[in-house]
């Protein structure tokens, strides 16, 4: 019996993996030498706060072993039984028909031939495909690496991602305070220290950091919130659901009606304006457009003063509570916890979510954003952090083998055509299709205004669709249309490449088995992709770079994504050019070599030891985010993406005026007449909200935030242990249903009892869930997390079938935030719910 340990890294923390006789038997938090940790400490209130020498993984990471050995792994290359590339392709049977096992040789031949045929017949723009996010970690194997390197060489049609977790900040807040290089989320440097030293109150607005965990940073920040609570910082939670942070921290819970947060924000501004409890000097020197805003809030624009009474009607929150909150907020140094990492709550992912996000910035501007204790801080980032040592992340051009200087050469894609993820089915089924905006607009505000049409001039419609991952039934909106797209003859050939069977896998003609990050060589830094979320690993207590050692051989007949694309490249005659003769481990070393790590540790030692902890230097000097702006100094934070940093304009924000804009100058210039994203934020009735005519038929509002117990869809379905967590799934007759939480009054009115199987439905779809009757949700709101990985239509292959896997995203509308703000808005969704009388 031989036992060995390996180091590896997941999307929620570094691990030590024990392998016995070629089998993983244990996955623990990375076991590091205690001497390698030099914990930072923060002095506040006569107390010293310092993190323990450990790595706190997200819970699901402890189920990694189950996920790797899951029965749901794609084990062999497969071909749909009624798919004949030389005869009848039967696209209408995608999602219905079964599969037969084929060899890698046959699969790769077939795919290479189809790529050649489609390219020769229609041009390379007829090839498109896209990846899902986050399922594995490591920059060699990450989705932007081998996939992009391969498809750029082919000259494919790329698909723009939408910033699906923080839409309103991206399409809205950027026009208020810049930070487009962070896609609308503000810098977070040293806000932990600022919070501990200066915060007297924290308002968590549509934010559940204990569940969203700074995206990748595991549970390292949980202890920070414990410190803040122990220190006696008052906490307020604004959310229609009493989220997990709220239950753990206690504090005041305010539960507005879904879609009305902007009204509450307006009323808070109204109290400050009328009681003159805002920071006039700051408004004067650090902002523009205040007078117009003041006029709107006080009612001179539309004759409707935005009083707490007015807001109370909209929000169903007592006016007195809004007044009390506003007064305390003005009186105390208050952190607004929303919008930054971990703050991608429902309020920004709904109709006109731009307005709420902009209001969040403006409220803090009225209290002096950037002054001590007055921040926008999600409480998941901003620990002391040594930013002087560079290590590439997947979102850095240098962190991808498709664009990195770690490669000898990188192919450039000549194709100008684009698709846009939320609308791929609409574009493919009903071209031409037009939209505005480049998806992730991290280089300039102007990218948001760029018009696109599919098909682009001189380009072909898509004929070959290559899907890597397959989770959209659980994560995109109105997902029945994805099923319709897959069954369309317009798509002549569909490939799906993944580690696991997911909701879209069964829609493919050829299925390829990929392996996980434990079955290949890689390297990565915990907690950050850098790029648009530069230095996000300051959400971890210790910065750690991990040599992701291959722990076991690829299971069954799976291969690494890199090996799969190398094989296909070989068949297409550019194998050598694709690999440059490098193995995955050679690439890991190449990335190591272009980082700053060789100045601190040799490759050999790093490779052997498996990790390197970058400690904070003893003479560390903190530079709290936006303090420079509040004090009208040059930016002193290490925010590398800020294009004005280190220039003559270094004291300015990324807006046109360089200040916080109550009236946006970028919107005034490009969309001056847009009534749906006006130049200044307004409260606009939702296109699918409590006042919509549709509410007569579907009176309940669906709230579907990011899930607590999985990482989007990942770890659901493939890890049976998660099904024993009742907050995640509830077993009934042996089937693990997705919980839908509802208020006791709504349950009683419909004769629904706790534990009943219920149907959530509207005109778009029907989804079966297990009812949880609880006072944790406000009346008229149904809370069911987004991101079920189980798409389980009662009638397989029928896009209109009821799903019993819990893909509540099927119920959500694919209408975008607003006309010119193409973000998705899953939290504007009216439904009805009834006890399911069918079989369970």
């Amino acid at each position, binding site marked *: 019996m031989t036992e060995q340990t390996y180091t590896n890294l997941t999307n929620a923390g570094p691990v030590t993996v024990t392998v016995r006789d070629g089998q993983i*038997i*244990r*996955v*623990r*938090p990375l076991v590091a030498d205690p001497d390698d940790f030099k914990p930072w400490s923060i002095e506040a209130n006569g107390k010293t706060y310092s993190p*323990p020498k*450990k790595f*706190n*993984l*997200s*819970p*699901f990471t*402890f*189920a*990694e*072993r*189950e996920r790797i050995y899951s029965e749901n792994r794609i084990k062999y290359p497969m071909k749909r039984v009624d798919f004949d590339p030389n005869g009848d392709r039967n696209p209408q049977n995608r999602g219905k028909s079964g599969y037969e096992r084929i060899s890698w040789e046959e699969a790769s031949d077939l795919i290479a031939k189809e790529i050649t045929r489609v390219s020769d017949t229609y041009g390379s723009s007829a090839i498109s495909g896209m990846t899902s996010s986050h399922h594995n970690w490591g920059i060699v194997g990450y989705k932007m690496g081998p996939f992009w390197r391969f498809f750029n060489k082919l000259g494919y049609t790329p698909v723009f991602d939408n910033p699906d977790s923080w839409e309103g900040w991206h399409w809205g807040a950027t026009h208020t305070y810049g930070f487009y290089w962070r896609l609308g989320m503000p810098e977070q440097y040293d806000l932990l220290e600022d919070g501990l030293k200066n915060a007297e109150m924290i308002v968590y607005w549509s934010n559940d950091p*204990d569940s969203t965990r700074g995206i990748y940073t*595991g*549970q*390292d920040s*949980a*202890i920070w919130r*414990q410190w803040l609570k122990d220190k006696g910082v008052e906490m307020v939670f604004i959310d229609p659901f*009493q989220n*997990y942070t709220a*239950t*753990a921290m*206690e504090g*005041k*819970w*305010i*539960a507005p009606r879904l879609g009305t947060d902007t009204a509450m924000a307006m009323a808070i501004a109204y109290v400050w304006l009328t009681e003159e409890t805002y920071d006039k000097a700051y408004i004067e020197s650090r902002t523009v457009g205040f007078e117009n805003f003041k006029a709107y809030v006080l009612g001179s624009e539309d004759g409707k003063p935005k009083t707490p*009474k007015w807001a109370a009607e909209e929000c169903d929150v*007592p*006016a*007195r*509570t809004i*007044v*009390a*909150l506003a*007064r*305390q907020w003005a009186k105390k140094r208050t952190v607004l916890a929303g919008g930054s990492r971990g703050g991608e709550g429902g309020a920004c992912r709904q109709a006109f979510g731009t307005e709420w996000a902009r209001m969040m910035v403006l409220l803090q501007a009225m209290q002096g954003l950037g002054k001590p204790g007055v921040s926008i801080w999600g409480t998941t980032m901003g620990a002391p952090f040594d930013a002087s040592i560079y290590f590439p992340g997947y979102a850095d051009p240098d962190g991808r083998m498709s664009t990195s200087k770690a490669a000898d050469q990188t192919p450039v894609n000549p194709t100008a055509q684009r698709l846009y993820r939320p609308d791929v089915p609409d574009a493919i089924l009903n071209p031409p299709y037009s939209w505005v905006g480049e998806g992730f607009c991290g280089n300039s505000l102007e990218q948001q205004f760029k018009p696109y049409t599919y098909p682009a001039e001189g380009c072909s419609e898509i004929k070959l669709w290559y899907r890597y991952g397959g989770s959209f039934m659980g994560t995109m909106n109105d997902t029945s249309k994805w099923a319709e797209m897959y069954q369309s003859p317009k798509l002549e050939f569909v490939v799906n490449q993944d580690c696991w069977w997911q909701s879209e896998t069964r829609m493919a003609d050829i299925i390829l088995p990929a392996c996980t990050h434990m079955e290949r060589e890689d390297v990565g830094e915990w907690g950050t992709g850098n790029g648009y979320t530069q230095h996000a690993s300051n959400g971890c207590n210790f910065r750690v770079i991990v040599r992701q050692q291959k722990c076991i051989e690829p299971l069954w007949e799976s291969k690494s994504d890199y090996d799969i694309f190398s094989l296909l490249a070989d068949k297409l005659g550019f194998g050598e050019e694709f690999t440059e003769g490098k193995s995955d481990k050679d690439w890991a070393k190449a990335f190591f070599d272009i980082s700053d790590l060789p100045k601190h540790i040799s490759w050999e030692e790093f490779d052997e030891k498996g990790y390197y902890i970058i400690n904070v230097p003893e003479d560390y000097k903190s530079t709290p985010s936006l303090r420079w702006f509040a004090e009208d100094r040059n930016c002193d934070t290490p925010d590398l993406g800020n294009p004005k940093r280190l220039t003559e304009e270094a004291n300015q924000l990324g807006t046109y005026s360089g200040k916080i804009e109550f009236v946006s100058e970028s919107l005034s210039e490009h969309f001056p007449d847009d009534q749906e994203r006006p130049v200044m934020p307004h409260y606009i009735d939702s296109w699918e909200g409590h006042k919509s005519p549709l509410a007569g038929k579907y009176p309940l509002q669906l709230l579907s935030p990011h899930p607590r*117990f999985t990482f989007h869809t990942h770890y659901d379905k493939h890890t*049976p*242990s*998660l*099904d*024993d*967590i*009742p*907050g995640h799934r509830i077993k009934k007759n042996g089937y693990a249903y997705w919980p839908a939480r509802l*208020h*006791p009054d709504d349950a009683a009115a419909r004769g629904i009892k706790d534990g009943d199987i219920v149907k959530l439905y509207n005109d778009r779809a029907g989804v079966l869930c297990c009812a949880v009757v*609880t*006072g*944790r*949700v*406000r*009346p008229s709101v149904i809370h069911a997390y987004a991101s079920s990985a189980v798409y389980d239509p009662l009638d397989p292959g029928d896009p209109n079938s009821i799903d019993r896997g819990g893909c509540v995203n099927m119920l959500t509308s694919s209408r975008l935030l607003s006309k010119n703000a193409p973000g998705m808005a899953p939290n504007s969704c009216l439904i009805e719910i009834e006890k399911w009388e069918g079989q369970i």
Partner: protein
Amino acid sequence: MSQPTMKVDVDKCTGCYACFLACRDEYTGNDYLPLSAAQPPASQSWMRVEEIERGTFPKLKVSYIPIMCQQCEDAPCIEASTDGAVYRRDDGIVIIDPEKAKGQKAIVDSCPYGVIFWNAEKALAQKCTFCAHLLEAGGEPRCIEACPVAAIQLAGDRLDEGEKLHPEFGLDPAVKYAGLPKNFVTGEVVIKSEDGEECAANVTVVLKSDTEEHSTVTDIFGDFEFDGLTELAGRILIIHHDGHAPIEIPLAGETSIDLGLIELGFGL
């Protein structure tokens, strides 16, 4: 010999279930003989988390209680076993012998805490061993390692202080708790004024019984709360209101209550 035990702080626990999953990772498919035999996949919860909701919308509280073998002093599982199949080690850890316990289903039913599980395949009763194999190697139990907020901690020796889980079972567990959920009473005090109402902050609220008296003041939202109560019946809540007679509300019932809006007249 020191007797390691666990201290659980329910107020700290966030209900993340990392402990539960880490425990499964350690024991599923892995033998640690002679201390424990492997668990079948996804079937047992040697460490489980119980969620308790108290109160009603919008004054709701949720507690998460991690529960593992309580290492009882007079352990009924030892009594229920034959042939010494369940025994207590010198360090106090109660162990089910994976060989001797075969076929002894009575062991499962003997534990009132419900922390013993039946492995049908091996016809074996199984439970938490405090990760004795890791303790012996100088490590710590997996649940403790996994916990991000130190809600579960290892105590070097038997604890006399602390709450017992389910004291009504009449056992003497070594594991001790803090912050186990009890009843609470809450309410919101408002002042009526000409143009509506305002939250009444800083109002003194007193909770009285024949034997004790607690006092608090309302917060900025006019909310007050007394938590940690066992009995509510027989207590009186008194709201002091300058210039007016105090408002007295007798309490009843056996669960947490939200008295809702308590209106103070105009003229404070």
